[in-house]
């Protein structure tokens, strides 16, 4: 377990920045204390400093998880955001998309979102911006990357892809073993 290096910090915050913009500051300085990022076996954890202090007691080999896992670094040094980070970034999300129940099912199986399944889309979404996907009950069910800006979406036909799938809560069932 160690703090992130500058490059790693840049990679992680760059990814998070796509979803929540300048709110990254809010993510670190919270009301209930300071939170920080730690890396352990290529996994990046987001953790309160209070918890971090006691978690240091556990030997590195036996420590599997602490706080919230944000994602992992691939062997090539890229950072992948995982669905476990959803609960932390969803409250600060800038771009949101709401899905119809039929499309919700498809998205939970890991498919991209088509225009036909979109119920609502927030304004001023740019192309390739990170976007949080909600169902009709306002529950976040995953995130992805906008394939089209809001303007382009208005004129698109129902079969065009609006959001590229990145992660969804269905992964808790589909790949429980590989999550961590």
């Amino acid at each position, binding site marked *: 377990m160690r703090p992130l290096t500058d490059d790693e910090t840049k990679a992680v915050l760059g990814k998070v920045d796509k979803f929540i913009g300048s709110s990254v500051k809010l993510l670190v300085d919270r009301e*209930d204390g300071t939170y920080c990022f730690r890396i352990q076996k290529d996994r990046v954890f987001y953790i*309160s400093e*209070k*918890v971090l202090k*006691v*978690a240091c*007691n*556990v*030997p590195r080999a*036996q*420590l*599997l*998880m*602490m*706080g*919230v*896992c944000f994602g992992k670094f691939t062997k090539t040094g890229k950072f992948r955001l995982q669905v*476990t980070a959803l*609960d*932390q970034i969803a409250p600060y999300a800038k771009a949101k998309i709401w899905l119809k129940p039929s499309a*919700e099912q498809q998205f*939970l199986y890991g498919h991209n979102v088509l225009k036909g399944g979109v119920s609502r889309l927030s304004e001023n979404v740019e192309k390739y911006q990170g976007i949080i996907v909600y*169902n009709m*009950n306002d*529950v*976040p*069910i995953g995130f992805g990357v906008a394939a089209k800006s809001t303007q382009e979406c208005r004129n698109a036909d129902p079969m065009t892809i609006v959001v590229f799938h990145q992660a969804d*809560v*269905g992964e*808790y*069932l589909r790949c*429980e*073993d590989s*999550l*961590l």
Partner: protein
Amino acid sequence: MGRKAKYDEKQKKGKGRKSRVQPAPQLPKQLKAKEDAKKLSRNQVKRLKKRQLKSSSKTDQAKQKRSPEEANSIDDREDGAQSSDDASGMDFENDSPRKGFTDENDSWLKPKQTSKRALFDDDADDDGVMDDDFDEDSRDPGSEASLEDEGTMRIEKQSKKILERRREDKELEEDELRDQADEQQKQKFSDYFRLPSESELENEKEVPLSVQAVHQRIKDILHVLADFSKRKEASRCRQDYVRQLILDLCSYYSYNAFLMERLFYLFSPTELSEYLEANQVPRPLTIRTNTLKTRRRELAQALLNRGVNLDPIGEWSKVGLVIYNSQVPIGATPEYLSGHYMLQGAASMLPVMALDPKENEKILDLCAAPGGKTSHIGALMKNTGVLFANDSQPDRCKAVIANLHRLGVTNAVVSTMDGRKFTKVMTGFDRVLVDAPCSGSGVVSKDEHVKTSKDEKDILRCSHLQKELLLAAIDCVDSNSSAGFVVYSTCSVLPEENECVIDYALKHRHVEIVDSSLKFGREGLPRYREHRFNPNMNLARRFYPHTHNMEGFFVCKLKKLANGNANNDGKGGEK
């Protein structure tokens, strides 16, 4: 976590629509019994009365011609005919419209009734026989008055004969009844059930009895054991019965002899059969609301909209819901995936309720997988303080991690190490939960494998490990903290894994049993076979499938009084 189980809609009970019983066939009018025929109209009744009046006046005229004695008897007869509808054999002398049979059968053969006579008597024929008996008795003095008359003499003889025959019949009947009653009495108390002899048992080994026969024998032995001194066979002792009962229960419910014997020590014979029967059916599926993300009412509404039939679990829990049936898989709804609830047995909520975690505390779950109880603790702590979850198996820890993330617990630290060595990593916790690995004798309905796979060694091994884990857990707790509680729970019902382990901890550490604030459940056993436990053991709680409709479970809450060992009074032994 049970999400690979089949939660398809349960099969409907009952026979179904197609097997509905057909109503009794409607008989056509002409086939119906005469009694059911239409009532006579008012005019018809009048006419009938007139007709009878006429006929009676006719007989009156005939009476004038006869002797007064005879007329007397005829009057009697007519009265009798009104109360009873039998034309007995004595009618054959008179000129009445109904004639009896005149051959030797006249004593018992009776002429057929006409429908109109039903007007005067609605009684069934069977009652008529008894009435007849009575009438003849009453008629006797009347006919005695006319002893000289030959006709009456014959009648009298016949009636006497009939009376005698009836009396004999009655006596025979009574004898028979008495015999039957005696036999029943005997059956009830002595010869009712006979244990199989050794040779019969030998035969049984080659040609096994049918399941029904074994079941019947179990019932019989249970009946004998319920009132043993009265119902036993004279030459057999209680142990013979018990041995046979255990054998039969083993074969009927397919347990191994060891586990059955242990269960027999624990339960009375009748309760044992209830327990085994309850283990044959699965417990209801229950879920726990994740209060970090939603409320029970909202969750129930959301699930109802998905076609799930559910109810609150009971008075004792504010987060539990019981699922009756569901059109969607409960372990894969969008609500489940976004962490609004957790599939969890009803009994698994009890240890956490006993632990009663508070905010801003340091809490340890020593044997966490698969994370149901851990996430429950996390929900009660509302993501404040620190929650440690440990499990010895790294594979099982993956489930803990996934569940904690899914349910939104952010203050958890998951480690995989031997729970017995956790004291080396960290101590000073406020509360510790030990949900120790056990033989699983309380969750037979979930895992049939338990029935046959356990033996003496397994229990000893479990018990030993549990003792070590409990001592480690007690060592992890800081006695100076405001809380300082340890909750020990297992999903086993055997006292070797429960009360014995607690007793061991009481002897080796400065702890005492405290009330677990669980409002229901059986009390812990104060004694078991040769063991005599702490009198406070009644504060521990036991849960059984047949009494509480949840898995067999044991929960005990301990309060740490002082640090250090109890017997050598080393570092912090002062009490």
